């Protein structure tokens, strides 16, 4: 009860915080899809530090190497104890608007781990995570896709869970979770069609080649 009341009080506090001033957004790695790395907003020197966010997960894990900004709100991932969060805060003050827990505190491939979130102009935040899928309808959807790619193989195992890297989405303003994409959708062991970039006597071509791997789930 106390916790609920506190939550409501803080929620009402958030509603009276001033909306950040709109400027040029930095929506993704290197600013935009062309990686221009140019903001239309000027800086007024000298600069001084306005606020900081320190983060430290287990084993001194510090994955905070990228942030993105939309409509005056900053989005980044940070660890706290055993948990990693996607955080939305006022870019000018650091006051948190919302934050969402992520399942994996650390992602094994470092570039995935340090890649910050990215946000669309329309307000969808993408963030990388690792998910454990245990609900049966989802597993069936995924396994049907997996085994349809290896039709000649038989896989006697019944999967109880699928663990995989995933792209998750959140609403930039509310933090409400949207759809997510599990990489297991690609199939067992990553069975996918390939295209080859070829040099031929007649120029460059693209050709299909057999999948890189196929087989039953390990």
């Amino acid at each position, binding site marked *: 009860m106390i916790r609920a009341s506190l939550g409501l009080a803080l*929620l009402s506090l958030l509603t009276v915080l001033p909306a950040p001033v709109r*400027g040029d957004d930095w929506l993704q*790695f290197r*600013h935009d899809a*062309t990686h221009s790395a140019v903001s239309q907003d000027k800086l007024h020197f000298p600069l001084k530090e306005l606020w900081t966010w320190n983060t430290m997960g287990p084993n001194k894990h510090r994955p*905070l190497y990228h942030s993105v900004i939309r409509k005056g709100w900053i989005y980044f991932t940070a660890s706290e104890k055993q948990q990693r969060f996607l955080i939305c805060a006022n870019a000018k003050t650091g006051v948190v608007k919302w934050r969402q827990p992520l399942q994996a505190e650390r992602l094994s491939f470092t570039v995935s781990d340090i890649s910050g979130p990215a946000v669309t102009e329309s307000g969808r935040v993408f963030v990388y995570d690792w998910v454990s899928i245990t609900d049966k309808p989802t597993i069936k959807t995924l396994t049907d896709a997996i085994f349809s790619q290896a039709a000649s193989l038989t896989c006697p195992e019944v999967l109880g869970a699928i663990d995989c890297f995933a792209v998750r989405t959140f609403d930039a303003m509310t933090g409400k979770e949207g759809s997510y994409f599990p990489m297991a959708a690609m199939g067992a062991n990553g069975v996918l069609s390939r295209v080859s*970039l070829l040099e031929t006597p007649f120029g460059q071509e693209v050709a299909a080649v057999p999948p890189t791997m196929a087989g039953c789930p390990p």
Partner: protein
Amino acid sequence: MLNVPEYLGHPLIVNNALFALSASDLLFHWDPDVKWTMTRIHHPLPEIDRDISPTARFGGYPPAYAENGLVVADETTNRFLALITGKTQQQWHRDLTHSLGIPAVGGHLLYTGFGGPGGVSGIVALDAQNGEPQWKYAPKDPEPDPQVYQQILSPKSVEVPVIGQSDRMLTDRRTGRKIPALEIKGYSTQMVPVPVMQPYSTSPFQHWSNSGLVVTQENVYGEVNHTVVALNRIGGTLVWKYPIGPKDVITSIVATPEHLVFCISTASNGLREPVWSVERTKANRLVAVDLKEGKEVWSQAVPRPGNLALANGLLFFTDGALHVLGGTAETGDQNEIAQAAKAPTLGAETDSSGRPVESAVLSSPR
């Protein structure tokens, strides 16, 4: 338990869709609630069976958007740079002999650093429509980055006959017994590991420690051979240069309409490393120079090397932690800013809208 070991590098947003290259050879595209595609991109070695020629290794290379396509590159195995314009279409690709930095695009030109550690031995401009080089700035024309050959096992799919008993009977000559003959009942696909040699850079994935480029209407800015240079965007001529020390590296570079801002890090061991793996440095500082002439206007020491972003007149510096810097005009209400110190607690209590991922809508795999 099914475990799918596939990871993505820096996301690229084009309209509402996300694109990314994986650690391996995957190009991923997802437009939520609309469609998704995944394609493995292959650059076969010459004179090797295309089926078993080793797969690419993107290492999470950050793709850029150009000419209605995606700039992708493998700078580590059978190196290439390509413009992919559809699930199975390329506009062009070029074989490479050098490491690459982070690509950037301005108009019809594609720019990238290339050569040596961090891909900062030079900057090259290519016509994004056909991949033809337009100009190159490389004061010391770099040698090709060395590769070694390593043996890997490449899977080859083969059709294996399935043998079973037929209706036809044979007689054993020794015993006179009748036994059923064997026949091919069908075929199954199996994967056979085939040893194959793969070229692999002795220093792979140099885009990890590249500082990126800045592309304005007039110029391209970037790190080349221990200088920060401004090059004319169309012709590649040198506009100005800002020298840095022999052990200094630029870890990130960004710009406003008036200033170029970058982070200079002096490596203790003289080696160039990605910012996330740097353990010891002698000194690190943020520097701003005038965009037109390269004159230093501001500098500030920072504890570690990191990456930069700019928005709303603020500078965002991430070095494992987040530091937000602004001028006096952006300082704002100190009471408001003071709340930032309490932000983690405040944020935790406002987390009321999340759903566990198990119950999230799985909208894409149809």
